[in-house]
């Protein structure tokens, strides 16, 4: 049943021009970043050749590209997750799901997986750019895979927050703003006390959604980073299920 809801969600996404325009804009912007990256790499290449243990093209082009993708996703995810529950509530289509023999868990997971599938398509389109380098050279596949895993986990975490925010309200715009606010907050949370080694910096550093990502981008696969994202996603999914269930109880 989760699968049916996810497929339906994905289908509806592709029926709306928003999803297509998002893919187009994403491809254009990130291609631009990619070209700039390549251009810079070419200009420093002679000096790199002279260095011992110099960073390769994966360090200088691919990792920054995934980094830029995260910025794009920060803006893109709230725009697609905002309508997931809130719009159904407003259009009163939610009662279709609620009166069907479907559990709240299936509804939330279905919605989450549907949007995640869309963003994975988007991420794979980004990943095609570094892979195009294979035509003229070689990339560090380990680092590439770790970066790809990172961007997927990051996206799924963003979506989990978006789903939760969407369950809180009837207004999609409010869901979008709060999702964006929350994500940005988690993005910059470790900036506090960054200069000194205070008592909080460890905690805030752990909470930061970006710090775990940066490690993966560098090709450092640490299971604690992956675990952080999985915990993060689970938490917000569970919160969403609880929130949707509460709809029946109180008004």
């Amino acid at each position, binding site marked *: 049943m989760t699968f049916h809801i996810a497929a339906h969600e994905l289908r509806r996404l592709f029926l709306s021009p928003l999803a297509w325009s998002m893919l187009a804009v994403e491809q254009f912007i990130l291609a631009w970043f990619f070209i700039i990256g390549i251009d810079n790499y070419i200009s420093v290449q002679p000096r790199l050749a002279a260095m011992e243990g110099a960073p390769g093209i994966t360090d200088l082009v691919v990792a920054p590209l995934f980094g830029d993708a995260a910025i794009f996703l920060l803006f893109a995810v709230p725009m697609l997750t905002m309508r997931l529950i809130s719009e159904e509530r407003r259009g009163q289509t939610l009662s279709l799901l609620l009166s069907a023999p*479907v559990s709240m868990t299936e509804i939330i997971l279905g919605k989450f997986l549907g949007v995640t599938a869309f963003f994975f398509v988007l991420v794979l389109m980004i990943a095609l750019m570094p892979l195009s380098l294979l035509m003229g050279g070689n990339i560090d596949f380990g680092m590439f895979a770790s970066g790809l895993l990172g961007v997927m986990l990051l996206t799924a975490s963003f979506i989990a927050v978006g789903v939760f925010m969407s369950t809180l309200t009837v207004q999609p715009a409010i869901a979008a703003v709060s999702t964006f606010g929350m994500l940005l907050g988690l993005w910059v949370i470790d900036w506090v006390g960054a200069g000194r080694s205070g008592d909080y910096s460890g905690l805030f550093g752990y909470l930061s959604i970006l710090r775990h990502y940066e490690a993966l981008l560098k090709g450092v696969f640490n299971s604690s980073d992956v675990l952080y994202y999985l915990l993060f996603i689970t938490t917000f999914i569970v919160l969403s299920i609880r929130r949707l269930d509460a709809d029946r109880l109180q008004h």
Partner: protein
Amino acid sequence: MSDVASLVRLEHVYRYYGPTCALHDVSFTVGKGEVLGLLGPNGAGKSTAMQIISGNLAPSAGQVWVNGIDLLDRPAAAKTGLGYLPDQPPLYRELSVDEYLAYCARLHRVPAKQQRAAVATAKERCGLTAVGRRLIGNLSKGYQQRVGIAQAIVHSPAVVILDEPTVGLDPLQMREIRALIRELRGEHSIILSTHILPEVQAVCDRVYIISAGKLVLSDTIAGLQLRMRASSLVAGLRRPPESQELQSLPGVQAVEALGDGRWRIHYDPERNPAEQLALEAVRRDWGLYELVPERLSLEEVFVDITRSEPAEQTGEGAAA
């Protein structure tokens, strides 16, 4: 738990919205193949009751069984036997009718092999065959309402709940939808809410009237018709006699002149003087040209019940 005959059973259901009580101790049953009309003024709690039966809303207290399964304990199992059309049909405007109904069938766990047939049947019953490929958003309100009903019956549930299915439709569409409801009654139990009284007379077997969250009347349509029988008749006479002469007929309690030789005659319900009056009129050559028994309209009964003595009449005349 629940006897087989009653498909839906509510027991002592309460529902509060904050401090306001939307439903107060509502209990009723719906039998197999029965069309139940939930009647009440706006804001009486009809929609709340239907949302509770459909599992969209949890009751603050009380229990609901659908098909003998506790809706609160095993919602998924209970909901397989339910089809629900809310007051606003839950439609995805960007989908075509076919896509939408196929999705509804999947949601209601219709086996994959039977989905196509289920969608085709639902479309046919609701007169949607011709518009299957059109986008729901482009359909007229009447057709959207039909899609809403098709959505509620696509998985042939035992119980169909329709919340004001004919609101906002033109008279012709209303008739079609009523005909559809009559057609459905054979294999489904139907709970129908409305505030259009003729609709109830047209399609329902049994009527529950809700007022201010309380069930104030539950009766069969026949019982309701009995209530509607009043105790007066209007007679038109070309050559009317003195009012005393009419008064002296057996059973007549009061006579009221309406002018133009028309009289309203109030009588003892046990002794209807109509026959006697006609006989006398012929015998004495009064020139009888009109003799009409007066009935209370359903509207008057409704106003009467919802205004006065709530709760007292519950259960009276009900078979359950």
